C-alpha cells in the first residue's frame, strides 16, 4: 500500500509470504532486491514508478507464484531481470510500456500459467519462440495493444508446441488483417475478439482468416463504450463455416441483424451458443437442423416469447428480456435445464409438462418474473431437482400440496414470492429436498407450525424476514440432517431453544436482527451439541440481573457466537448500546448481598423478638432481679375464690403461676392459713398483710358465697387502707347480670375496668397467663385509675 517508500523497508519479517508495495516510488529495482524474503509467494509492485529492473532483481524468490508490475513506466529491463523465479505462475505486466513479447526476458519461466500484458504498446502478434518452453501456459492477455496484422509465422510456435489449453484475449486491438491459413490446424481453448474491427468488411475478412482453427470457445463482440461496427449482418459469420467451434458467444453488437434465419448457418454444429445484449426483438424462424445443446439469450430485447422447436436442445437460458410476457407453451422435448429468470413473465398456469413441453426437466428457474399462478402440482415434471421462484409473485402456492410429486427435488427457492403459508401440507412430498429458501414470506398469525414433516433430508433452511413471532416447539421435529437455519430479521421476542433441540446435526443458527430480550431460564441448555456458530447480533437484549444466568451463558459460549461486539444491550437505559459482554455479574451480586443481609437482619430481629416475647419473664427476672424483691411480703398474691372453683385454682392457677417462670408464691387458704386461728384473722394476717396483690376469681359460686364476698370486701378495705395492693379480677365464667347486680360494687367495677377472662382457646389462655403474670410482676397498683373510678362512684 501507499506509504511513500523509496526503498524496500528492512523491518519486514523474513517469513512474509505476501508483500504489497504498490504505489510507493521505488523507481529502481537493483539486484537481489527481495533476497531478504525467501518465502514470498505474492509480490505486488503496482505503480511503483519503476523504470529500471536490473539483473537478478528477484533472485532468491523461489516460491513466488504471483508477480504484479502493473502501471510501471519500465524503460529498461535487464536480460536477467526475472532470473530466479523458478515457481512463477502468474505475471502481470499491464501498462508497462512493453513494446514486444519477443524482447520480454521471461523465456526461462517454465512454470508460467498466466501472462497478462494488456494495455501495452505491442504491435506484433508474433508469439515468441520461448512459448515452447512454457507447456503450462493457459492464459495470454494481449488486449488493448496495438496489434493490427496477424501473419502465418506469428503462430509458428504453436505448431511446434501445441498449447491446447491456451486462452487468448485480443480484444481492443485494431485488427486489420489476418493472413488466411494463419490459424490452420491450430487448437486453442478460447479466443476473444471484442471491439477489434473498424468496419464490417475488415471483420468479415479477419473472420475468414481464422479458417482452420479448432477452438473450444470463440467470443465475438464489442463493448458498449467502444462501438466500431456500423451494422452487423449475416454475411459476417459466413467465415465461421471453416472453423470447428464448441461454444460460440457473441455480445454487445449494437445494430444486430434482426433476421436470424440464415445467421446461424455456419453454427449448426456448435454445442453451446450465447447471444448477449443483442437487439433481436422478435424471435424469427430457426432452421430445424441445428444441433445446439445449450442456447443462452441474455438481454436480447425480445418482445414475444420464442416458440422454437429445437429437438436437440438440453439447456435453454432466456433471461433479462423485460417485457417478453406472457409465457406461451414450449415444445423442447429434450430439455433438462430451463432458465427463464428476470423476464417479467407471467404464467397463467404453472407447472406441468403440458406447458413446458418436456418431461425431462431437472432445473427450472422462474425467478424474478411477474405473477405465476400455481394451477397444478408439477405433473410430468417428477425429474426436477432444482426449482427457483424467488422474487416472482406466486399465487395459490399455499392452497394445496403444490410440490407433492417432486420426490427428486433437492433445491427449492420461494423467497420473496408474497406467499402466506396457511396450509400446513405445503411442502408435502419433498422427501429429497436439501435446501429450502423461503425468506421474505409470511405465516398465518406469524406462527411457524410444523410444515416440514416430509423434509427428512433438509440441510439448509432460510426463514429470514418472515415476520415470525413464535415458533412451534415441534416445528423442526423431523429434520435430523438440518445443518443451517437462518431465522434473522424476524420478530422473535425470546431465544426459544426448545424447537432446536431435535436438530442433532445443526451447526449454524442465525437469530440476528430479531427482538430477542433474553432466553427463558435454563432453556439454553437444550441447544444442539453440534452447533458451531450462533448469531445473536442486533437484538434487544435486556442486560438486567433477572437474566444474569443467560448473560453468563452468553459469556461462557463466546467462541460459539459471531460478531460478539455487535451484541449490544437495549435495556436498561444506562446500559443502552453497551456490549452485552460488558455486563458484570458483580452488580447482581452486590444487590444480592444487600437483599440477603436485609433478609438476615429481619429474620434475626424477629427471632430475637420472638425469643424476647417467649422468655419475657426470664429476662425480667435476670434484668430486674434487684428491683423485684418481695420486700416484707411473703406472698405475691392472695387468691380469693369460691371453694367450688378449687379445682381450677389447683390445676390451672397454682400450676401455672407457682411452677412457671418467674415463680410466684400464692397465698391459698387451704394450704397457707394457720390452723387454730380465726378465719377472719387468717384472711387479714396471712392473706392481705403478707401479699402484694389480691387475685379475685369471679364466678357464679363466688357471688353466691358469703365468705367470698366477705373476703372481697375486706380486700377492698385493705387496699384502701394500705394503698398498696392491687386487685386482679379473673372472671372464670360469665355471670348472670341479675346475680351480679346483687353485688353493686363488684358489678360497677367489672363493667368499668379491665379484668381477665378465662378463655377456652389455647391462644386466649396464652394471652391470659401473660397478662396475669405481667400484672403480678407490676409492683404498682393495677389499673389505679379504674380503682379511683370505682371508689369515686
Amino acid at each position, binding site marked *: 500500500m501507499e506509504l511513500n517508500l523509496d526503498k524496500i523497508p528492512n523491518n519486514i519479517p523474513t517469513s512474509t509470504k505476501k508483500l504489497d508495495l*504498490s*504505489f510507493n516510488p521505488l523507481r529502481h529495482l537493483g539486484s537481489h532486491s527481495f533476497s531478504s524474503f525467501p518465502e514470498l509467494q505474492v509480490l*505486488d509492485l*503496482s*505503480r511503483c514508478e519503476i523504470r529500471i529492473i536490473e539483473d537478478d532483481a528477484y533472485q532468491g524468490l523461489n516460491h513466488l507464484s504471483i508477480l*504484479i508490475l*502493473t*502501471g*510501471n513506466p519500465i524503460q529498461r529491463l535487464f536480460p536477467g531481470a526475472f532470473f530466479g523465479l523458478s515457481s512463477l505462475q502468474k505475471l*502481470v505486466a*499491464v*501498462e508497462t510500456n512493453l513494446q514486444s513479447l519477443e524482447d520480454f526476458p521471461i523465456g526461462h519461466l517454465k512454470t508460467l500459467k498466466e501472462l*497478462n500484458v494488456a*494495455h501495452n504498446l505491442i504491435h506484433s502478434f508474433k508469439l515468441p519462440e520461448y512459448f515452447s518452453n512454457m507447456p503450462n501456459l493457459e492464459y495470454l492477455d494481449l488486449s*488493448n495493444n496495438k496489434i493490427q496484422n496477424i501473419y502465418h509465422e506469428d503462430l509458428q510456435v504453436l505448431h511446434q508446441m501445441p498449447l491446447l489449453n491456451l486462452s487468448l484475449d485480443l*480484444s*481492443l486491438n485494431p485488427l486489420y488483417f489476418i493472413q488466411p491459413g494463419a490459424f490452420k490446424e491450430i487448437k486453442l481453448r478460447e479466443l476473444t475478439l*471484442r*471491439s477489434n474491427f473498424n468496419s464490417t468488411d475488415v471483420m468479415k475478412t479477419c473472420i475468414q482468416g481464422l479458417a482452420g482453427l479448432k477452438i473450444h470457445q470463440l*467470443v465475438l*463482440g464489442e*463493448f*458498449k*463504450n*467502444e462501438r466500431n461496427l456500423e451494422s452487423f449482418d449475416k454475411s459476417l459469420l459466413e467465415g465461421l463455416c471453416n472453423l470447428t467451434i464448441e461454444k460460440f*458467444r457473441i*455480445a*454487445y453488437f449494437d445494430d444486430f441483424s434482426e433476421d436470424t434465419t440464415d445467421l446461424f448457418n455456419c453454427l449448426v454444429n456448435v454445442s453451446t451458443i*450465447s447471444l*448477449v*445484449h443483442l437487439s433481436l426483438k422478435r424471435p424469427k424462424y430457426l432452421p430445424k437442423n441445428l444441433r445446439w445443446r445449450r442456447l443462452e439469450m441474455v438481454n436480447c430485447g425480445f418482445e414475444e416469447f420464442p416458440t422454437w422447436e429445437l429437438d436437440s436442445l438440453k439447456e435453454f437460458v432466456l433471461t433479462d428480456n423485460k417485457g417478453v410476457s406472457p409465457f406461451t407453451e414450449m415444445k423442447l422435448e429434450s430439455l433438462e435445464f430451463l432458465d427463464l429468470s428476470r423476464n417479467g413473465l407471467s404464467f397463467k398456469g404453472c407447472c406441468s409438462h403440458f406447458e413446458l413441453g418436456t418431461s425431462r426437466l431437472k432445473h427450472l428457474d422462474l425467478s424474478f418474473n411477474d405473477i405465476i399462478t400455481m394451477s397444478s402440482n408439477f405433473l410430468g415434471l417428477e425429474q426436477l431437482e432444482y426449482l427457483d421462484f424467488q422474487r416472482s409473485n406466486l399465487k395459490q402456492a399455499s392452497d394445496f400440496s403444490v410440490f407433492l410429486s417432486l420426490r427428486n427435488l433437492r433445491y427449492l427457492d420461494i423467497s420473496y414470492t408474497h406467499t402466506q403459508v396457511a396450509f400446513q401440507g405445503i411442502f408435502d412430498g419433498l422427501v429429497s429436498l436439501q435446501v429450502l429458501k423461503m425468506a421474505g414470506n409470511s405465516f398465518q398469525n406469524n406462527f411457524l407450525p410444523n410444515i416440514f414433516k416430509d423434509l427428512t433430508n433438509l440441510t439448509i433452511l432460510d426463514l429470514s424476514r418472515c415476520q415470525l413471532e413464535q415458533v412451534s416447539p415441534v416445528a423442526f421435529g423431523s429434520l435430523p440432517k438440518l445443518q443451517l437455519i437462518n431465522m434473522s430479521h424476524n420478530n422473535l421476542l425470546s431465544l426459544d431453544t426448545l424447537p432446536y433441540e431435535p436438530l442433532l446435526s445443526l451447526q449454524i443458527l442465525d437469530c440476528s436482527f430479531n427482538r430477542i430480550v433474553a432466553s427463558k431460564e435454563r432453556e439454553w441448555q437444550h441447544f444442539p451439541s453440534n452447533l458451531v456458530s450462533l448469531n445473536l447480533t442486533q437484538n434487544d437484549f435486556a442486560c438486567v440481573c433477572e437474566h444474569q444466568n443467560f448473560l453468563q451463558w452468553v459469556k461462557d459460549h463466546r467462541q460459539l457466537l459471531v460478531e460478539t461486539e455487535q451484541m449490544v444491550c437495549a435495556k436498561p437505559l444506562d446500559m443502552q448500546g453497551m456490549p452485552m459482554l460488558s455486563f458484570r455479574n458483580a452488580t447482581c451480586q452486590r444487590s444480592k448481598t444487600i437483599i440477603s443481609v436485609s433478609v438476615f437482619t429481619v429474620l434475626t430481629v424477629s427471632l430475637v423478638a420472638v425469643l424476647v416475647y417467649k422468655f419475657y419473664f426470664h429476662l425480667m427476672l435476670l434484668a430486674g432481679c434487684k428491683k423485684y424483691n418481695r420486700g416484707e411480703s411473703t406472698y405475691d398474691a392472695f387468691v380469693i375464690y369460691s371453694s367450688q372453683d378449687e379445682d381450677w385454682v389447683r390445676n390451672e392457677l397454682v400450676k401455672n403461676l407457682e411452677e412457671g417462670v418467674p415463680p410466684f408464691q400464692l397465698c391459698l387458704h387451704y394450704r397457707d392459713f394457720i390452723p387454730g386461728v380465726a378465719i377472719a384473722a387468717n384472711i387479714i394476717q396471712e392473706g392481705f398483710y403478707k401479699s402484694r396483690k389480691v387475685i379475685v376469681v369471679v364466678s357464679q359460686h363466688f357471688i353466691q358465697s358469703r365468705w367470698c364476698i366477705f373476703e372481697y370486701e375486706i380486700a377492698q378495705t385493705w387496699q384502701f387502707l394500705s394503698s398498696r395492693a392491687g386487685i386482679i379480677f379473673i372472671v372464670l365464667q360469665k355471670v348472670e347480670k341479675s346475680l351480679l347486680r346483687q353485688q353493686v360494687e363488684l358489678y360497677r367495677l367489672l363493667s368499668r375496668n379491665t379484668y381477665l377472662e378465662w378463655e377456652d382457646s389455647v391462644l386466649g389462655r396464652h394471652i391470659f397467663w401473660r397478662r396475669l403474670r405481667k400484672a403480678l410482676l407490676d409492683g404498682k397498683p393495677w389499673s389505679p385509675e379504674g380503682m379511683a373510678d370505682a371508689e369515686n362512684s
Partner: protein
Amino acid sequence: MWSMEDPLQDFGFSVDQCSKHLKSNLNIRFGIILREDIKELFLDIALFTKGSPILNFSYPICEEDLPKFSFCGRRKGEQIYYAGPINNPGFEILQGEYQILLELYNEHRSTVACANATVVCS
C-alpha cells in the same frame, strides 16, 4: 460543461452538458488510476435534497462474464479513461440544491472511487 478533480484519489470527472432537462444520453468523461482490481464493479448512487433522500440505487457496471464496458477487468495500478455516453432515463431537474453521493466498489466491497457533489439548479 462541468468537471472536477480529486488529487487524493487520482480521479477526474466531467459532464459535457448542464441543462435543466437531463438528456437520456449524457456524455461524460472520466479518468482514474485504479487502487483496486475491477473484475466486478458496482455503483451506488444516493441523491438528497435538504438532507432527505430522493433516490437511492445500486447498479452493476462490470460483471465477470462478458463485461459491458472495455474498462471492466482492469487492474489495480492501471489508468483508465472513459469518454462516452451513460444511459439514464431523461428527466427534468426541478429547481433546487441537490447532494449526490456516488460510490464505486468492487467484488470485495473495496471502494474504487467515491464522490460527494452538490448540484445547484436555478
